[in-house]
């Protein structure tokens, strides 16, 4: 029983969603059937004066459709059509009830859950932080097809409905009220009383939005918005234009005709590989959130060390250190921020307060929450005892000797249970750990820049790292709302290692005469969020060069550190921080190519390459290195590689990650292209053994799942 029905004294039918043995309510076939029966019951029972929908779950009203049905592929077009039409029929039935209906929303009310609420006459929401309302279907490559694309524009007007559905916004209660998605926001304790009160008001009469919701205006909106959407997404996300089409042409038709457009839309979208990849990413994230690594001992709640972390320390108040400290403090931890003098600490404090300032300005945090966050930072420019901290994250300059010295001291200052973590992006954890008497408590916790935006964290296991430290670190990362990927202590770990051949190929192509904008455009068209030359500028060529030489030393000619970076450094062109790199940043808006840098490229070999050839040169080494990471057990599963690259570098989500992409291209074809490139462009393209053997055997990544 997913839905329980009771009748309140005044003839109001209370339908309570309570999926057994789950913290969430979902719409699967059984739940939809139950709902249908309850509706039939209400239709036939003349004593029912109204219906109110509630959930018993702590943080979820109805989370939407059961995505597992879409995830485990094998859904045929007919299956999808049936899923769409059953939902549409049941919600139509709900909308057509003669009695007033109210959705009393507390917790996440998303996708199909909100589509049900839309079919109700009234929507009342709790003002709780856990209440989130919206139709996020486009973020998994679908569109709202249980009436959401049809009913929302009729409720709030086409422009506001588009603004809610296209970006797949999940709105806080206040925002939902402001946009008309709910009628009233009340404290949770009053939710039921207010909801039953709505029944007494009967069915509402609502404004018709005659201006926006007519066919002509809708057509104009579509014409105006579509090119913008295509430009913004590079045409890689078909759900967006399709949703726009459905909504703008459906608005001037009958409800039934519009619902038919929805159904046709979702059938077309659900069968596309993009949708499959986006849904897979959703599950990759869920997997990371639930990941249990190391020893189960971290599951015991008996002693202090297994309680959630309350105090942390961050060593080094640079951009990364301050970014980490800000994130931890925003998640409720008290954070000691240590650097060697008040000036550096002050710079870190300034970085932190600016991040909070922006978060408050963007209404991510309230003013009070922002102040509390800054208050939780404990600046220190002297050595202070750290025995009370649950975790220490070192984010000092990337110099091994320095880090070893720091860890030697941290070992003394820390408590017996404190995790000693380093945020190094390149240095060997195992070696740093040797500087301490407790190498089993040393681990890498590698955040990406900017910390508050990048969800991925590499948890790097050193030789001596204990399973318990690993388990606690993974839990810590999850607790602070980040996605952990467990990585072995190999040079470059996972993300930087796969990214490096890509960047070094990009700079080689540049040195060989390919134009900077062509290189970047090729990868933008591939779907990367930023071209490689621009990325190098943002990271800083000094940093890039440092990592490149480090990896080159480890992996030899597979990652040739091209001379061009050195020439750029010699010329003082460090990227954005020095005002110019491959681009010139002296002007404010779109930076033009830096002429001085372009002069440094002397080769001609890559000058005439087509966009596809450029993409091959840059993408294939990534795929090759990704396969190598599996081969060398840097990570355990292909899932880790794909999640890491998507969340850590913005590898195009619609391609599902480098290994999914490799599958899609075909491993045999990849091996063939790599071999061809190895002959023409250099030995760094040599395909790895795993790729070769898999190609030969006709196997695929994820093949055994």
């Amino acid at each position, binding site marked *: 029983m997913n839905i329980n029905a009771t009748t309140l004294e005044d003839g109001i039918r209370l339908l309570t969603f309570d999926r057994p043995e789950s913290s969430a309510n979902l719409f699967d076939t059984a739940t939809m059937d139950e709902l249908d029966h309850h509706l039939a019951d209400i239709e036939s029972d003349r004593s029912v004066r109204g219906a109110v929908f509630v959930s018993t779950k702590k943080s979820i009203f109805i989370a939407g459709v059961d995505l597992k049905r879409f995830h485990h592929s094998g859904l045929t077009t007919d299956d999808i059509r049936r899923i769409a039409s059953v939902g549409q029929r049941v919600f139509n039935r709900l909308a057509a009830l003669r009695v007033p209906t109210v959705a009393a929303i507390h917790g996440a009310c998303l996708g199909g859950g909100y589509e049900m609420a839309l079919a109700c006459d009234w929507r009342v929401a709790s003002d709780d932080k856990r209440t989130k309302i919206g139709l996020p279907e486009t973020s998994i490559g679908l569109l709202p097809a249980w009436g959401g694309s049809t009913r929302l524009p009729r409720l709030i007007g086409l422009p506001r409905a588009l603004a809610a559905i296209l970006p797949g916004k999940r709105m806080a209660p206040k925002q939902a009220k402001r946009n008309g998605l709910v009628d009233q926001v009340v404290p949770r304790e009053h939710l039921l009383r207010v909801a039953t009160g709505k029944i007494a008001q009967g069915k509402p009469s609502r404004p018709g939005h005659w201006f926006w919701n007519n066919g002509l205006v809708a057509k104009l909106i579509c014409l105006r918005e579509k090119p913008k959407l295509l430009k913004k997404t590079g045409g890689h996300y078909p759900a967006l234009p399709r949703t726009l089409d459905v909504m703008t042409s459906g608005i001037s038709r009958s409800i039934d005709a519009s619902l038919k457009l929805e159904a046709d839309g979702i059938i077309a979208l659900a069968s596309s590989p993009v949708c499959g990849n986006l849904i897979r990413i959703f599950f990759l994230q869920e997997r990371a959130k639930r990941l249990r690594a190391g020893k189960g001992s971290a599951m015991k709640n008996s002693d202090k060390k297994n309680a959630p972390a309350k105090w942390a320390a961050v060593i080094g108040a640079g951009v990364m250190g301050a970014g980490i400290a800000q994130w931890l403090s925003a998640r409720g931890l008290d954070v000691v921020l240590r650097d060697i003098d008040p000036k550096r*600490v002050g710079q870190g404090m300034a970085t932190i307060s600016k991040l909070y300032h922006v978060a408050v300005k963007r209404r991510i945090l309230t003013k009070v929450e922002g102040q509390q966050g800054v208050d939780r930072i*404990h600046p220190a420019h002297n050595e202070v*005892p750290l025995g009370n901290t649950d975790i220490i994250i070192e984010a000092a300059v990337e110099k091994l000797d320095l880090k070893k010295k720091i860890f030697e001291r941290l070992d003394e200052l820390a408590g017996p249970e404190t995790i000693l973590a380093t945020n190094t992006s390149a240095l060997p954890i195992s070696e740093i750990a040797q500087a301490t008497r407790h190498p089993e408590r040393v681990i890498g916790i590698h955040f990406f820049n900017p910390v508050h935006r990048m969800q991925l964290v590499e948890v790097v296991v050193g030789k001596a790292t204990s399973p318990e430290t690993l388990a606690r670190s993974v839990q810590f990362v999850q607790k602070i709302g980040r996605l952990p990927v467990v990585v072995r202590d190999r040079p470059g770990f996972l993300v930087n290692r796969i990214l490096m051949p890509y960047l070094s190929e990009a700079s080689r192509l540049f040195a060989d005469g390919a134009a900077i904008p062509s290189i970047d455009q090729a990868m933008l068209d591939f779907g990367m969020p930023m071209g490689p030359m621009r990325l190098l500028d943002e990271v800083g060529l000094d940093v890039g060069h440092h990592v490149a030489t480090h990896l080159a030393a480890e992996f030899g000619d597979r990652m040739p550190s091209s001379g061009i970076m050195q020439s750029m450094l010699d010329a003082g062109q460090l990227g954005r921080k020095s005002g110019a790199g491959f681009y010139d940043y002296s002007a404010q808006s779109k930076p033009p190519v830096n002429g001085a840098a372009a002069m440094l490229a002397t080769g001609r070999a890559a000058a005439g390459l087509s966009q596809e050839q450029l993409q091959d040169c840059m993408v294939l080494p990534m795929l090759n290195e990704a396969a190598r990471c599996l081969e060398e057990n840097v990570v355990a599963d292909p899932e880790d590689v794909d999640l890491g690259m998507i969340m850590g570098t913005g590898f195009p989500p619609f391609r599902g990650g480098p290994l999914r992409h490799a599958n899609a291209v075909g491993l045999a074809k990849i091996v063939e292209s790599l071999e061809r490139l190895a002959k023409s462009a250099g030995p760094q393209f040599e395909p790895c053994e795993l790729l070769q053997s898999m190609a030969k055997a006709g196997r695929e990544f994820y093949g055994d799942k």
Partner: protein
Amino acid sequence: MSRERLVIVDGVRTPFTKMGTSLARLNASELGRVAVNALLTKTGIDPGTIDEVIFGCVGQPIDSANVARVIALRAGVPRSVPAVTVSRNCASGCEAITQADQKLAAGCGELFVVGGVESMSQYPLLYRPSAAAKFNRLARAKSLGQKIGAALGFRPGDFSPLIGLKLGLSDPVCGLNMGQTAELIGRENGATRELQDAFALASHQKAAAAAARLADEICPVYLPPKYKSAVTADNGPRAKQSIEALAKLRPVFERGTGTVTAGNASQVSDGAVALLVAGETRAAQLSLEPLGTLAGYAYAGCEPSRMGLGPVYAMNKLEQLSGLGLNDADIIEINEAFAAQVLAVRACAESATFARDELKRDRPLGQVPEAKLNVNGGSIALGHPVGATGARLALTSLLELRRRKAKRALISLCIGGGQGAAMWMER
């Protein structure tokens, strides 16, 4: 007398800065937060183990009733730990310490964060009661006519504010402000303008010379809203202060015959002090080297118009309680509310007549040797954020005892309203 003593485990303070300067934009809760935050960081203790937070403050910010609670929560003390604000005017910082001692004795806790805070820059300007009544009438007016009538009731005088600082430094009982009480005891005890100025000069010179030592007790304050620049030192002491410059200043409180000037009175300042204190047993469990103990204390009342002599009465009472007199002190702090007042305290301590008539004892309190008195300068140079100073004297003197490898410090303050405070700090 077997009861546990209160141990001062560690302490830290913000820089003390002149009213309207570096820390002017930080209100009392922010100043106190910085000090307690730094104390928790410096000591590394688990704040969940604190039994209570006790903070002294004279002019509590109007938006932070029980400012100690606001300070505690903002500084990272868990919400389960209670907090109380105490006020004994200029000795509020002492009161916080001695209340911890009393709670310890009463069995109401054994680990406390105590301290004192004052933002004199943020003392409010107030509407006069007559104006407030008119605002009230305006707010309650309903019809347009009533509103116009109420608005027309205002007079220009209604908009000249009462200055909170001025009111705070006046004694409503005797009708004198603090400066006038200093003038009174100064002239009764032969504290001439020249003596006062010379005393003030010495305070500046001692404080300026002590800057590096005082840095030991100071935590930087990163200034909101950007938190980038840090205030790291007191800005009161003037190394280049000259006697000529002091002599040029005009008396503030008494026309013609007055002697108390802005130069020989304590500076009006902002600042906060936080101390970690614990019973001896509890202190021994912390792996921290304590600064010293509170070995005894006394508060005594005296005539409000001669409040500046409070320390004499308090030291007398403390001697009776502890059996220790001025001679037993390795260093002595007499808070420099006014040079005239410290000079008067010294004179009375040495006076047999005063001892007989006022203290009812047969011999004077004793000498206050120059070499032991306010060795790192006093409030004339460092400033006197009223609620904080008492705690600063405890901290500064304990650190000085450690530097001198000495045993005992006697600290004392005069208290507006006619009281004195005296405490023995011991190592």
